[in-house]
Structure formats: C-alpha cells, structure tokens
C-alpha cells in the first residue's frame, strides 16, 4: 500500500513545521511542502498521483488560498481532491466563505491537534 501523500500549502515556516510534525506523528506518510498557492498548483500539475489531503493556508502572499481553490476548479481530477482550509480567521462567516470556495474542512489557527488528527483520519478513511 502506498504511503498517503499530504500537500502542505503554508507560507509561515513554523506553522508548516508544526503541521508536518503532526502529520508525521499521525501516519507514515509523504509530505510535500509548498509556501504559496502557485507552488502548490505547479506541483499538482506535475504529478500524476493525487495527494490524500491538501492542507491549505487561506492567507498567503503571491497566491492565496481562495485563488488556489479557483484554479483547482480547473484541475481534471478536482472532484477527487480534498482541501482542508487553514486560517487564523475563526469567525463563522470566514468558515462559510472558505467552505463555499470549495474547502472540504476548515481548521483554525492556533491548531487544535485533535481536530487536525480527526480531519486526517476522515481524509484517509474515505
């Protein structure tokens, strides 16, 4: 069985590091780290395999989460992609906005490790 693949899109190196640690702790997996939407898109387009979950920071320089999601809509296999939005904006309308833009889940910063773990679990079981 292939290792699960997670795509991290996060500009802050420390936050990226924490997410990586949590992911690694949870499962033996392959983690791809990108620092903005464009990098992530480029990686996705180069790949034949799909990540099991994309952890996407919504606020990033160059290409933010929302723009990334718009571009992702053009991906040939976009309906098989799961994106968990990650943001420091915790209000319900921020959540609604992200879900409307195409996020499957919405995680708020600072991280709740249990929440992230349950999201990973959901992504892996489905």
């Amino acid at each position, binding site marked *: 069985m292939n290792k699960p693949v997670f795509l991290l899109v996060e500009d*802050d190196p*420390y*936050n990226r590091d*924490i997410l990586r*640690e*949590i992911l690694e*702790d949870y499962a033996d997996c392959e983690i791809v780290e990108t620092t903005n939407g464009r990098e992530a898109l480029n990686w996705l387009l180069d790949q034949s395999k799909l990540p099991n979950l994309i952890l996407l920071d919504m*606020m990033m320089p160059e290409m933010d989460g929302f723009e990334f999601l718009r571009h992702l809509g053009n991906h040939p296999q976009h309906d098989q992609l799961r994106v968990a939005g990650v943001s*420091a*904006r*915790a209000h*319900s309308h921020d*959540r*609604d906005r992200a*879900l409307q833009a195409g996020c499957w889940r919405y995680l708020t*910063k*600072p*991280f709740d*490790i249990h929440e992230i773990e349950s999201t990973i679990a959901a992504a892996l079981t489905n």
Partner: protein
Amino acid sequence: MIATPYSSAQQRSRFVWLMSIQAVLVVVLLIASTLLTFGMNRLSARDASLLSYRVRLNDVHIALLALHNNLRGYTTTGSEIFYDEIQKQHAIVAEGLDVLALNPPDPSLPQVVQQIREWLTNTYQPVLDSVAKQDLLLAELTLEQGRPQIEAVIDTTSTLRIQLRERSDGYRAQIDTYNWIKFASIGLLSALIVVSMLVTLRFWRTQQHLIHEIEDKGSQLLQSNHELSFNTNQLSIINSILGVRINESRVLREISDYLVTNPTPAEAYTFVAQTVGNVLNTWCSIALRFPPPREEFLDVLASYHALPSRQAYIDQMVQSVQFRIDNGLYSPIFTERAQVVELFNVPAEQRHPNYLTSEVREHLEPFTLYSYLAVPIKIQDEAVGMISAASDSPERLLDHDQTLFVRQVADRLAAWLENIQLFYLLKQQANELQTSFDSIDDIVVAYDSRGHQTRINEAGLQFFAGRHFDFLSTTLVWRTAKGNVLGFDEHPVQQALAGTTVRDVEVALARSDGVPIIHEVSVSPLRSGDGIIEGIVLVARDLTARKELDRLKEELVANMSHELRTPLTAILGYSELLLKRRTEVLTPWHTTKIDGIRTGGQRLLSLVNDLLDIAKLDAGRIELQRQTTLINSLLEEQVSMLQTMIREKNQTLILQLSDDLPLLMIDPERIGQAVTNLLSNAIKFTPEHGTITLASAALNINEQGQVEWLAQALDTEVPPMLAGQYVLIQVNDNGVGVPTEALLKLWDRFYQVEGGSTRRFGGTGLGLSIVQQLVELHGGRTWASSAGENQGSSFTIMLPASRGTQLARLNQGVRRTILVIENDQHLALQLEEQLNSAGFEVIVAADRHSALAWAKQHSPAAITLDLVMPNSESWETLAALREIDHLAQVPVLIASDASLYNELPGVGVSTYVVKPIDSNILIRIIRQLLGVQTQSGFILVVDDDYDMAELLCATLQEHGYLTQASYDGAAALDLIQQGNYPQLILLDLMMPVVDGFQLLERLRANPETRNIPVIIVTARDLTNDEIRQLRQAAQAIQTKHTLSMRKLVAEVQRFAPLKESDTP
C-alpha cells in the same frame, strides 16, 4: 329826581293818555316779549337739538373714519390692538346711529343711517369675520370693495355736517336778530320806564304796582338776554373743540395711513414727531430704550419743534444728553409704569430740566419748560419708549385732551413697532437659522404637521436635488440599512408626530440619483408654546464616511489579530507538540516550563479573540445569525464543552433547566459564547470542589411591569423591561463573590475586582463586557448579584422570547404530515411512533430518492432530515427539496450531532435538533413551527404599489402577523387557489390584470373563500354606488389619502384576532 306836579284833570287826561299809551306800549311790549321769548326758546331748542345731532354726527363721522382706518390696520396686521379700537369705534357708531335715527332734524339723516348700517353689514362685519378666520387677504378684498360705500357715507356725513352747521348758523342769525329787537325793546322799555317814573312820581301809589311789573319784565328780559349770549359763547367753544378733535382724528388717520406704507423706522419716527409737534404746536420727541445692556438709557429717535427757530436747541440737547430712564420728568413711565406724565403747568423750579448738566442748561437757556406731557409706547404692556411733548411758551399750555391724542398716537406707533420688530426679529432669526442650517453638513429638513416641507438646508437641497422630500407620500417608505422596510409604528416620522424624539436610526435615504445612502436619522417633534406638535424636524447624517472608517478599523483589527495568531500558532503548536511527546524527551522541569508557555499563549489568544469581538461590537459589525433556538439544548452543549475544566477543578455543576421555555430567536453561536464566558468565569472563581449552578427560567412582564414567573422562579431582582415574555439564564457559583460596589463596574472593560485577580485567575477583563454587549444586541439584559465576598455570585442573562416571527409560511396542503428522512430504521420507527402519538401523520423515507419522489406529489407540513455528517448527499437532498416549488417554504428540521453543530449552514434550514433526539423537544419544535400557521394570523396584502405593500406587511408583522404580499389580483388569486387561505385580505382596488373588484367577486363566489374578511385599502375616489357595493362584500374600507395605520391595524385585529398560543 322830583316829578313835576300836573293838574288833576290834565294829569288825569294826560295820565289816561299816558296810561293808555303806556298800556298800549306795555301790551305791545308784553306781546313782543312773549313772542320773542317763545321764539327764542324754540330757536334755542331747535339749535340745541341740532347741536346734539351735530355732535352725534361728528362722533359717528370721526368714529367711522377711525373704524375704517383701524379695519385697514387690522386686515393688514391682524393685530388685537386694532381690534380693541374697532370695538370702541363701532360702539360709538352704533350708539350714534340709534340717536340719529330718532326724530331726525334733517330728512337726509335716516338715509345716512341706512347707508352706514348697510356698510356695517356688507363690509365691516365680513371683514371682521374674515380676519377672525385668519383670511387676511379676503378681509382686505372685502374692505377694498366696501371702500366706495364708506367714502360715500363719509362724504354724505361731511355734507350733512356742513348743512347742519349752516342751519345752526341760520338759527343763530335769527337769534341775533331777535337779540337786536330785544335791545330795541329794552331801549323802548327804558324810555317807558323813564316816562313811567315820571308818572309814577305822581301816581306813585296807584301805579307803583304796574311800574314794578314793568321793571320785573325788563330785568327778566335782561336775564334771558344774558343767557342767550352765554349759550352762544358755549356753542362757539364747543365748535372750536370739535374742530380740534376733527383735526386730531385726521392726524391720527394720517399717521395710521403712513405707517402702513412700510416706512423705515427712522422715517416713521420723524414723521410722527413732526405731525404731533405740528398739531400740538410744541416740541415733540420720540425715544425708545436702548437694547440691553444699555436698556437704562433712552435713545431719542426723533425730535421736532413746531417752531423752526427752536429746533437747533433741541437737536443740541438731544445730542449732548444721555437720557436715563430713571432721571427726568418722564421717569415715572419707566420706574412706576405710569400711564401718563402730565405737567401742564410746570412749577417754576422745574422749568429748566434738572437732568441737564449746568453747561447744557446754560446753553439751552432760551428753552424754558412751561408745559409737559409724556406717554409710554407700550409693547406687551411694557414701556419700551415714550412720546413726549413739551411747550416752551406760557401761551401754549398742554391739556388732557392733547394727552389723549398723544396716547392714541403712541398706541398706533406701538402697534406698528411691535409688528416691525417682530418682522425684523423674525427676518434676522430666519437668516441666522438658515446660515447655521446651511453650514451644517447634515441634512436638516423641517415639516409642518400636515407634512409640508417648511425648511431645508443647503445639504438637504443638494442631496434631494430639488425633489420635494414629502414624508407623507412615497418617501414614507424607509428602509433600514439592511434593506427592510420600516413599519408604520416604528417609523421615526410617525413616532415624532406622536411626540417621541427618535435618535440615530440608521436608514437608507434615496439620493437624487436614486442611490440609497445610509444615514443616521434623528426626528424630533416641533412643539408650539402650549405643547401642541406643530411639525417635525429631521436631521440626517451621512454615514458613508463613518461606515468606511469602521470598516477600516475592523479590517485593521482583523488583520492585526491574524498577524498575532500566526506567531501564536507557532508558540502553541510547538508547546503542544513538545508536551505530547514529553514522556519521550522531556524532564518534569521542562514539562512545567513548556506548560507555562502554552498557558501564556492561550491567554494571549483569548485576549486577541476578545479584542476582535470588542472591535466588531464597537463597529456594529457583528451580524446576528438568528435562528429558532431551544435554549436548554444550547446550554447543555456549552456545559459539555466545559466538562474538562470542571473535572480538572473537581467542581460540581448542577443544571436547573426549566421545561417548556419559549422558543428564542437568537444567534446560538453568540449566546453560546456569552454563556460559556459566564460559565468559565464561574469555574475560574470557584475554588476546587465548589458548586456551580446553571439555571434557565422564563417569565412574563405584563403591561403594568409586573413580573410573573412562568416555570421555576429564580432568586433575582428583574430589572424593568418592556412587557413580554423573556427567558433567563443564570449562572451561580459559591466562589469568591463580588463586593456590592463592584457589581455594576464588573461589566466595564478591563475591570477586575481586585488588582491581583487577573494573575490569580487569568482572564482578560473583556469577557463580561463582551457578554453584556452580545446580550444587549439581542435586546436582552445582563446583571450580577452577590451576597458579598466569598458568598458566591450570580450572573443573569435575560433574553426576549421570539414573538410570531416568520418561522414558516402558510401551506394548507396535506396538513400535519411529517416527512421523516432517516436511514436508520430503528430510529425512524421510534420517531414515527412518537410523532404518531403526538397526533402527526408520518411518512418515512429511507433515502433521498424516495423522499424526493414522495415530496414532489405531496405537501408535508414539515420535514426532518438526518444529518450523519455534513456530507454532500444530505445537502443535496436539502437543496433538491428546496427546489420543489411547493416545498420551498416548508419547515425543515435537521437532526444532527452536537459536534457538527458549527459545521451546519444556516441556509434553507428552519431549525436544528441535536442527536440523540429527545422526542419531546422534537414534537415541541414541530408544533411550534406549524403552530404559527394556524394560531397567528396570516394576512394577504394585495397591492400593486410595491412600497405600499411592503409598508403594510412590515406594519402588520410588527403586530405579530404573518404576511404575504401579492402585487396583482391574479397572483393573489393563484396563491389562494393553491389553498393558502389567509385569515384576512388587505385589498387595493386599482390593479392591473385582475383588479380588486374582480378579485372580491371571485372570492365571494367561492364558498371556501366567501368568509375571508377583506379590508379595502384604496386611493380611488369611490362613488356612492361603489361604496354600497363594496360594503356588502368587504368588512371595511380605508382610503389611502387619509390612511391611518393605527386604525387599519385596529381593524385587522378586529377581523383577524391573534389567538393566544396554545402551547405554554
């Protein structure tokens, strides 16, 4: 004197001769004297009667002149001053007319009387009536029409006066003639007396008696002669007085006439001073008090001397003296409110006025005051100035009649002055007001009580660009910042007209180009002096800039909080990671330190969260996502989230939740946040092993403000609130308590009971402030109580229960059938059983397809949808259900896990219940959802005027009705034919396609709709036939011109009363 003796015979014959001559003479003289006396008496009587008529005629003549003048004044100004004078003069005329009509000495008098009476009837009375009705224009016109008539009357009276005078002169000429004859006869008599004396000397004894008689007659004649000449003198005096009076009355008329030509004040004073000075032939001056602060001094505005040579002295004096109101001959006018100062004979020591300095006195030496009078110029019974007349000649002493004349002048001047002052004052105030109005950036518009715009400032003109902003027409429809139409009762204009000042309501006003601009509007009633509301003034401030500022501020805080969260994420994330692996790598020392970092980070995080909330609350940018909420479930959820904290401190949490609480229309997230805040405070401030109680209760406050607990009563003082139902949430602890003096300050930001408590217990000091603001945003109240320190404390939230809000639209289809979409067979069976026993018919659909297939064919009263997870299938089911037209408004309940609560969208869902489903709660919710349809009134508003329909809907909703607007008869008919029978219809008559008449006819033809009450609301002028026809078919008719919302609502309530809810 000694008489010569005569011979007896001679004497006798002589005597006989003399005696016979004498007898003849005596007889002749006696006859003549009798005739003369008789003639003179008659003449005198005639003349006297003539005189009385003349005097009367003069009075009437003068009174008519004055009456006409005053009428002119009255019609021009409407001033009461004129009216009093008119009454006085009219009385003189009326009395005069009565006298003149009796035994008139001249045949033309009755005609004059008739003429005057006609004028009184045709002109005078209508003028008075018109002025009384405040129709000054009509009064002027009437007066102008009656002018030829009154001029004719005055001409006739003048002519008649001259005729009468001529007749009088004739009489006097005759009396003169008689006088002359009398003199002659007296001469003759004297001669006779001489002769008689001669004879008497001889025939003293015999003729003594006769002589005496003759002497007596002579003296009598003399006396009557004296009387006659005295009469004549008096006549001429009266005549001259009359002449003066006529002159004065003419002058008064001249002054009145002049004053109505709108002279400038300076012109007017000069004219009056000159005129009076000339009439009195003295010095006349007019002085007014200076305005404050120099009101102690008089300003001499005009000073005139009839003798030009004296003018220079007077001018000199006026210029060089400061006249104090309390120093001078005139001072009683100001100091004692004297009506007049009369010093017709000035005592020698006062002849040189003592208010003059010696220097001036010396200079004015030629001026010696012999006679003086002054009368006040009174405005509203206060002496604002005076007219004085002073004579510097002993030959021209003033008298009381002249005082009366000057007083009349002063009265006229005062009336004019009052008008002109008022006029200038108003003009000045209007200018000042307009200038300040125009300098304000806010829109300021004033209206009278009939809705006419009376004033608008520059900003208003620019905003509305000349459009007449008439609040009684279409602009009555105001939208809130969110676009909802304001109902009639909450409409600021209506509230202001009812006497309430409404402040800072945010509404969107349409700019001249139609763009709605959010304004903060305040409307205040304008009251007259006696408190009657005469209109309103509306002030509107453009909020665009402020909104932008608020938005920027909120954005800044949001960004800041994001920027703060990112490093916090690192701090908290790393501490978590480390702590998670502590057994592998960390010593206990490390663990405590890292725990310290995490705790600090968490506190910082909650501070950031609180600050963000505060910023949003301040900016008014928290939008409540209200939904129907069962408060107990919400409370239980909050408790479950805090269980860990409670367990950690080994505390006990007791739930005292009342059953049967009213439903709340609240934002569960926000109220949940408030409750969590109170609970975590309680946990924090309660020592280990302490007890915390969370209670819920409901109460009703009636119109008298009395509190009635509906279920369990809580031990707390309920603050005064508006009448209605409320739900209370109370958190009690037995912790450190709160000192009494701190109970109110607790809710202030950053307030901590004791300085060290933050460090000891953690917390930002913002929590309670946020709780209070969130609750107040919901229209609720918060308060705290404590028995004292270490006695524990109690925090209470009070929220208004939802009243008849639009939970669901009416759908009559298959009533009380519940579609249960549930794939868990066991659960479905259980629900079916419970709902059946509650009297509902239940259709269970195990999957989406069967649910949709059934729902397309039927109309369930409500749908429950199980949501295992917020996955796409459940949402698609919901969306698909919503797309079926007749299901669009059917209430949908989502049953879901509490853990997914935050994931659930607010759209398309009526309410949520949390699994495991408590069937009692479910049934209650369903009953409440459906109950609204049948228990509260559903009103159909049919009006093609969109704004009007919305206004009616909004107003009725305020009164707890459900409303549906249809914009033409056909749409309304469709709605009704689908089975949506309203409890009442508000119907406009003039509509396209199917008009109100047709709709009414169709409704009445159908037995099912025959009994629905209809209230006609129309702008149409109805004919009597139409009214008769409509009365048979409709319950009430209201025309839009005179539409009174209160009356309309009262009628709706009469024909469609709202029933009391049958669930508690």
